[in-house]
């Protein structure tokens, strides 16, 4: 987040600034005259919505954090069919949630330019899978753009709006972590004033996808794909960026992989022509066929699925059977899982061309192996003072660690790490609630589903209704830290504040649960350990579904709030009664509890005075701060 996001509003075409890919997309929104932005936060896309939320009022943009990606697409689509320019941002798996809306929106189309940003995560830096969303372009028939750097992120938003209005189709802008989260120079363009008021022109044949209308809609969509092909053939983003001195080797690449490919060729001293694909759907068949004809060998460099390669091979089969194509389909010159690096691409290119690598990476690996023997892992952990730690301690204690814990997407997934080790099954947003029904029916074992506040609203509610209706027996623990913590503290319906900071209506989780028909619904502060344990035991006795909302604010927000007010967070203190039994560390794993020269001490820069360790110390050797702690 730039300290001063307002620099993104400067109408200063030609100015060059250093921007994160996501900030560049936000600048693209401003330049393109987009006036509706919807999102559900998800790494690596989160900073797009966060940046817009801070600029929305000044830029005359309506921005909202929607309850989930499907709703985000629907709200934006509603505006776009009325002629307003709109953008929706989400992480790759968000498009699975939104897919139902997107697939048929492709039939209906839009009138105002509409861009759907879908941010992939090769290497699963912060995701449950690394699916390649370019395949959604094939599935939906929507045009797809793939930026490689922040400059293209910005420019392609504008370009996507143009294409979208020309074709009256939504356009996918598909990024990856290394594009969203890379900073690079961006030259500003001019700002177009947004259109703020739309109009709905009733046309049931166009906008109402009943079967009778949907059949011709499909035909019309396929016609649009033909028009889109022409755009792709002539797109400035599909071009030969470099011509080698001879015709032996050509490289086709897109997205982040393109950057590695160029540097890997430099690294090897490989003189190859480069065809950069920025608009990968529809595939620029003529341009690619020409490139195939011009070269003896063509190497396709792309992360994840062989999406370009499949299409290149299909073209070669029909038009250029003599060209040799290298990629990852039969012989795997490049891996299909995880992200690329210059090294990975260079090793693949070296294998194909027979050029010797200028650095002996194996030697580096060998030497590094010697180093890594003394290295311990340092995974992210629940923060000091995190209320989830208290909730997990309570759940373990109340169930004597014998329950099964389907869990969900958020910080609280970190609960799987020892010593808490709470979390047994994790699929996707909201799945804790649905899977808990199946797990408890299949095993008869006490089952506690764990879900966060934002995730509950996103996808937990239908599964909870299902549990009531079909009488599944489990306890749903909503770990409510009053924010969407993992993605950078965005608001949600349970807070009563909108994405642009205005007061909205607060939707209480306990009221929702009651409204869904759950009979046993309780709210508790998890730092009240004894009371919470009693409550969980009681809930597990219920013959159907029960809900406990563990409510306490995210420790990071608490610390930030105190700092803002200039107040100090008083830490807990260890008294002389401490026997160094290490129970606090071994049971809670709080990063503020550390050992120095064999003695347990509290790191005062981290401790928030939450009181949890004081409550569980067998020797009552931990003292609360004077004011009674900050729980």
């Amino acid at each position, binding site marked *: 987040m730039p300290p001063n996001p307002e620099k993104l509003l400067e109408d200063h075409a030609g100015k060059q600034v250093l921007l994160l890919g996501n900030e560049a997309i936000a600048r693209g929104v401003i330049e393109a005259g987009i006036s509706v932005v919807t999102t559900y936060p998800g790494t690596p896309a989160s900073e797009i919505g966060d940046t817009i939320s801070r600029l929305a009022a000044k830029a005359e943009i309506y921005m909202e954090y929607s309850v989930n990606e499907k709703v985000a697409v629907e709200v934006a689509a509603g505006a776009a069919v009325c002629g307003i320019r709109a953008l929706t941002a989400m992480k790759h798996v968000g498009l699975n949630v939104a897919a139902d809306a997107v697939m048929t929106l492709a039939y209906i189309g839009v009138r105002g330019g509409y861009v759907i940003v879908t941010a992939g995560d090769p290497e699963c830096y912060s995701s449950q899978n690394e699916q390649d969303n370019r395949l959604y372009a094939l599935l939906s028939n929507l045009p797809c753009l793939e930026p490689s750097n922040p400059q293209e992120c910005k420019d392609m938003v504008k370009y996507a709006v143009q294409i979208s209005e020309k074709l009256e189709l939504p356009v996918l802008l598909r990024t990856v972590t290394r594009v969203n989260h890379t900073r*690079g120079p961006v030259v500003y363009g001019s700002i177009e004033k947004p259109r703020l008021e739309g109009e709905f022109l009733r046309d049931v044949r166009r906008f109402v996808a009943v079967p009778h209308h949907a059949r011709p809609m499909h035909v019309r969509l396929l016609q649009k794909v033909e028009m889109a092909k022409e755009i792709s053939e002539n797109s400035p983003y599909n071009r030969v960026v470099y011509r080698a001195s001879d015709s032996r080797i050509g490289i086709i690449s897109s997205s982040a992989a393109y950057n590695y490919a160029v*540097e890997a060729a430099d690294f090897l001293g490989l003189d190859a022509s480069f065809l950069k694909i920025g608009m990968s759907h529809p595939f620029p068949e003529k341009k690619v066929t020409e490139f195939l004809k011009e070269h003896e060998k063509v190497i396709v460099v792309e992360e994840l699925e062989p999406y370009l390669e499949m299409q290149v091979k299909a073209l070669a089969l029909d038009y250029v059977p003599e060209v040799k194509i290298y990629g990852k389909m039969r012989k795997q010159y490049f891996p299909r899982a995880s992200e690329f690096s210059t090294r990975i691409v*260079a090793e693949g290119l070296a294998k194909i061309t027979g050029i010797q690598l200028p650095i002996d990476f194996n030697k580096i690996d060998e030497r590094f192996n010697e180093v890594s023997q*003394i290295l*311990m892992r340092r995974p992210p952990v629940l923060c000091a003072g995190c209320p989830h730690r208290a909730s997990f301690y309570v759940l373990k204690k109340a169930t004597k660690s014998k329950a099964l814990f389907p869990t969900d997407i958020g910080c609280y997934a970190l609960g799987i790490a*020892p010593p808490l080790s709470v979390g047994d099954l994790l699929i996707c947003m909201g799945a804790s609630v649905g899977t808990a029904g199946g797990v408890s029916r299949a095993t008869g074992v006490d089952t506690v589903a764990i879900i966060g506040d934002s995730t509950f609203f996103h996808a937990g509610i239908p599964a909870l209704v299902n549990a009531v209706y079909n009488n599944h027996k489990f306890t749903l623990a909503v770990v409510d830290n009053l924010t969407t913590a*993992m993605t950078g503290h965005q608001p949600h319906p349970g807070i009563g504040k909108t994405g642009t900071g205005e007061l909205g209506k607060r939707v209480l989780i306990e009221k929702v649960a009651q409204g869904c028909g759950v009979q046993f619904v309780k709210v508790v502060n998890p730092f009240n350990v004894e009371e919470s344990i009693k409550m969980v035991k009681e809930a597990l006795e219920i013959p159907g579904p029960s809900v406990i909302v563990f409510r306490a604010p995210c420790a990071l927000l608490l610390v930030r709030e105190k700092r803002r007010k200039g107040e100090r967070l008083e830490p807990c203190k260890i008294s002389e009664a401490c026997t160094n039994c*290490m129970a606090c560390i071994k049971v809670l794993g709080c*990063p503020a509890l550390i050992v120095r020269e064999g003695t347990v001490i509290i790191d005062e820069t981290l401790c928030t005075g939450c009181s949890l360790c004081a409550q569980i110390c067998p020797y009552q050797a931990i003292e609360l701060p004077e004011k009674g702690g900050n729980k």
Partner: protein
Amino acid sequence: MNIFNLLLAGVGGQGILLAAEVLGTAALSEGLNVRVSEIHGAAQRGGAVVSNIRIGERALAPTITEGTADMILGLEPLETLRNLKFASDKTLVIMSSEIIIPTGVYLKASEVPIPTLETILEKIRLFTGNVITVKASDLARKAGNILTRNIVLIGISAATGKLPMKTETLKRVIEELVPARYLEVNLKAFELGYDYVKSMR
């Protein structure tokens, strides 16, 4: 293909992302092409954090290739160690010497023992002999805030004369990016880091 490769390594909460932004912005404001990569999410949760800064006309990739880092700024010794595969015998390592032990280590008796600073330096020397160590939090505390360790290291890197950016530019960018009420301590931290190298000579 003259690219300057700088790797920042540390633990979430040490200010890696701000340090990277300072270095990247300074490079760009001198008209240099730059790429800065970051991984979000783990940054505030005590996990290992790395940022790559690449400066030069042909710098396109967000990450550094193994064996090609010109400089490694390590805010923590174990995290410096974790990124040694990016070093060669030409790499300059500037490292804060205070080890932060991962919480998980206390839980398992069988875990590898916590290495001493001497062992860590020995391993670093397998890759490169150019190492500057500093107790960054001492200097940061002297500047007025322990959280300025990141800026202390930038001060040191500037004083070595190996960065492609001018010292004045770095200072100006710090003024631009750091909120006003923290500016004085940050500039002080920069100075203390800068003088630390001068005093070594």
